[in-house]
């Protein structure tokens, strides 16, 4: 079956929904999502969305931009960062106007709190002097992402957006550098449809599920990034994957940085507030890459606590904040600790360990969300990307907390606007290949495969190996071992067999297709990590412990290149922020 639309948006998280709201009414637009829109991963976000509103204290967007550049370890493109931070104030106010129920301050304005890496100069007359934490994260208790997703979904209903929920996208149709649509199957019936479109936006989210311990939902399998990669198009800076310092021990479920923003502190086995030694000025509110490394260092030096599963953890203490603050501002995350670990956070500290959290890398796109075909800046006609699956790059080597919910609404909107402009002259380009047959073949080959390999087994091995060999600390030996392992896993993937051979709601099939996507994401991540011989942001090489500004101020563009990945480099865009040592 073929359906025609002016624009197809893949993904109904914050980025996809914000884009959908922006598409002018005169164009036909459909949003495809493998889960019901309000089930998308954006809904799990807790802590906040940042903008220098200055509702609690003086602040301005330049402070925000400075922090984002520094937080990115100078890998973020500074023009893009300026675009985002300048637009943040409008974007957050717009969310309020759309109906998002924010927590409020005493004046009835949007309430704000502290978050890691968000600072301002201690002395306003000395902009490059000592910096102190600033209240910049706008929030709704600790359910900011949940209410953001709901608000955007509600606005889509109001605007009568066309949804194809529980449609799984299997293929991106790009011919002669022109994107012409996608192929997908209806999960409930198995029926394959080609969505023939003038423009396609990818807003498919992250790929945290390549790691064993992750805060990401089961559906976070990097499908969009894999589709692009397999089409011969590049992915950017995939070696930068953020580990959030505070995941619930054993489970990886996130305990938002808001817990530390409200005054929570990290302690080692001796009860010591160890962040004092790693980041004397901002301590527990240092950026995530630094706190995660600090935790692993504490554990390696014997100051962690051994858990019953054999892994080590440290403690996050919020008990001194009092029941009122905990119940009003951190109800959800303290509830997780109670439910899943049986810990009462008002009385005792929460066992935590770093958890794989956020992909800084992704599909290279410019500030108008046009997807780049190469490191020179050429674009793919009609293809757009926004949100966590994209790399603009505003997060560089390390994302600051609350900057992703911001990214998805700022760039979701910009992408929507750019598509609106493009559609004024765009036409449906004829599809020359046979995408419907291709997807049917692909499904058939999984269903009919009689090999002996099991999807869950390959996936578990991948996740365990990635955690071990390509996690917070990396080195050449481990990465090379991971390359070999990936080769083996890809080979074994060819002989997977699944038990469910049906067409109706075949989740067995979906897991197999998702595993293929995870393997593609892992490959790009590992090759990127091996190639980057320095330590920057979330990418830490034990064998190259220093940042190397002479060679490292470049984005990596990785191409699949028929199975032997190739990396090309693109210089970072610098406006006015000169790289300096990153100390907090």
């Amino acid at each position, binding site marked *: 079956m073929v359906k025609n639309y002016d624009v197809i948006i893949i993904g109904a998280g914050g980025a996809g929904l914000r884009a959908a709201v922006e598409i002018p009414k005169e164009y036909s637009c459909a949003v495809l999502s493998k*889960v019901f829109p309000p*089930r998308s991963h954006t809904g799990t976000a807790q802590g906040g969305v940042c903008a220098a509103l200055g509702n609690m204290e003086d602040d301005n967007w330049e402070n925000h931009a400075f922090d984002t550049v520094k937080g990115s370890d100078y890998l973020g493109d500074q023009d893009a960062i300026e675009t985002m931070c300048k637009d943040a104030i409008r974007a957050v106010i717009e969310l309020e106007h759309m109906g998002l*129920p924010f927590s*409020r301050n005493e004046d009835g304005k949007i309430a704000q709190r502290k978050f890691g890496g968000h600072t301002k100069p201690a002395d306003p007359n000395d902009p490059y002097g000592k910096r102190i934490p600033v209240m910049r994260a706008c929030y709704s208790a600790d359910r900011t992402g949940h209410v953001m997703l709901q608000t955007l979904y509600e606005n889509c209903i109001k605007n009568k957006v066309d949804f194809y929920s529980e449609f799984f996208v299997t293929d991106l149709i790009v011919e002669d550098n022109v994107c012409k649509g996608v192929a997908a199957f209806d999960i409930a019936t198995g029926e394959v449809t080609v969505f023939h479109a003038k423009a396609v936006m990818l807003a498919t989210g992250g790929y945290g599920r390549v790691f064993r311990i992750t805060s990401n939902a089961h559906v976070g399998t990097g499908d969009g990034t894999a589709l692009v990669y397999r089409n011969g198009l590049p992915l950017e800076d995939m070696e930068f994957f953020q580990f959030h310092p505070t995941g619930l021990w054993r489970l990886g479920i996130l305990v938002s940085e808001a817990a530390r923003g409200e005054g929570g502190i990290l302690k080692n086995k001796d009860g010591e507030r160890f962040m004092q030694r790693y980041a004397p000025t901002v301590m527990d509110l240092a950026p995530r890459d630094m706190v995660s490394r600090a935790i692993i260092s504490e554990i390696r030096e014997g100051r962690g606590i051994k858990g019953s599963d054999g892994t080590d953890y440290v403690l996050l203490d919020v008990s001194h904040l009092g029941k009122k603050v905990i119940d009003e501002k951190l109800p959800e995350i303290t509830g997780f600790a109670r439910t899943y670990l049986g810990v009462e956070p008002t009385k005792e500290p929460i066992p935590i360990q770093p958890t794989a959290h956020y992909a800084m890398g992704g599909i290279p796109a410019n500030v108008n969300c046009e997807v780049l075909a190469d490191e020179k800046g050429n674009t793919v006609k009609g293809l757009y990307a926004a949100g966590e699956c994209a790399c603009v790059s505003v997060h560089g080597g390390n994302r600051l907390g609350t900057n992703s919910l911001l990214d998805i609404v700022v760039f979701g909107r910009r992408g929507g606007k750019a598509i609106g402009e493009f559609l004024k002259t765009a036409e449906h380009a004829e599809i020359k290949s046979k995408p419907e047959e291709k997807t049917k073949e692909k499904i058939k080959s999984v269903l009919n495969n009689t090999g002996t390999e099991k999807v869950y087994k390959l996936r578990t091995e991948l996740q365990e190996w990635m955690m071990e060999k390509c996690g917070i600390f990396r080195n050449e030996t481990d990465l090379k071992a991971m390359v070999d392992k990936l080769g083996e896993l890809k080979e074994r993937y060819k002989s997977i067999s699944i*038990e469910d051979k*049906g067409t*109706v709601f075949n989740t*067995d099939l979906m897991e197999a297709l998702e595993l293929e996507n995870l393997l593609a994401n892992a490959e790009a991540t590992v090759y990127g990590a091996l190639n980057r011989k320095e330590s920057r942001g979330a990418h830490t090489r034990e064998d190259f412990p220093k940042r190397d500004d002479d060679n490292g101020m470049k984005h990596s563009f990785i191409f699949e290149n028929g199975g032997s990945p190739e990396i090309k480099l693109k210089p970072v865009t610098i406006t006015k922020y000169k790289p300096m040592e990153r100390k907090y």
Partner: protein
Amino acid sequence: MDITVRILRYNPEKDDKPYFREYGLKDVSPDWRLLDVLHEIKWKQDGTLTFRRSCAHGICGSDGMKVNGKNRLACSVLLKDLNLKKPVVIEPLPAMPIIKDLVVDMSGFFSKYEVIKPYLITKTPPPPNSERLQSNEDAEKLFESAKCILCGCCTTSCPSTWSNENYIGPAAFLKAYRFAFDTRDEAGDERLDIIDNPDGVWRCHTIFNCIETCPKEINITWHISQLKKRISSREM
């Protein structure tokens, strides 16, 4: 620890009607989520077992199902909180057509949610460059209702839903509250009219099943009573 689970299975491509199938699991930990059990079965015993899930920590609303007679989220139930001396009985959410195994067709549920105009309706334009003001107290009055994750546990636990398929249901009412009691909303009668009818709030007989079952522990009946009060007061 060893456990047994009985799961209602149904594959429309093969089965005339749903049937129970039992699975035994060895060496499970009491700290496991029920979702972990379902995964264990799917990944190691029976790949055809079908259910929805995503976040695995009670925030996306995907895995509502009936566990030992009560609607719950599989990811929010720990084994130690269940009676494991008997088999754990798992069925799909009631009052919705089964697509396959534990997956139900929620399109009716979502269309009722859409009926109540689940979005802020305003007539006065907002200030151009700043937020509308609202006291934190007023904002917090919305938070409990805004917690709803649209899992469907409440609506499908309600006898009024079982007896009348047109009943709008508690989840949609909760959403109606979320907007009707937002100081910024100006829908007035437009939204209240939709729920002020025989299939609307008046069919809620305060049976409290919804509160009993809500995985987010929302006091849904209280919210519905506030809507009833608001409707009554406008009629006076």
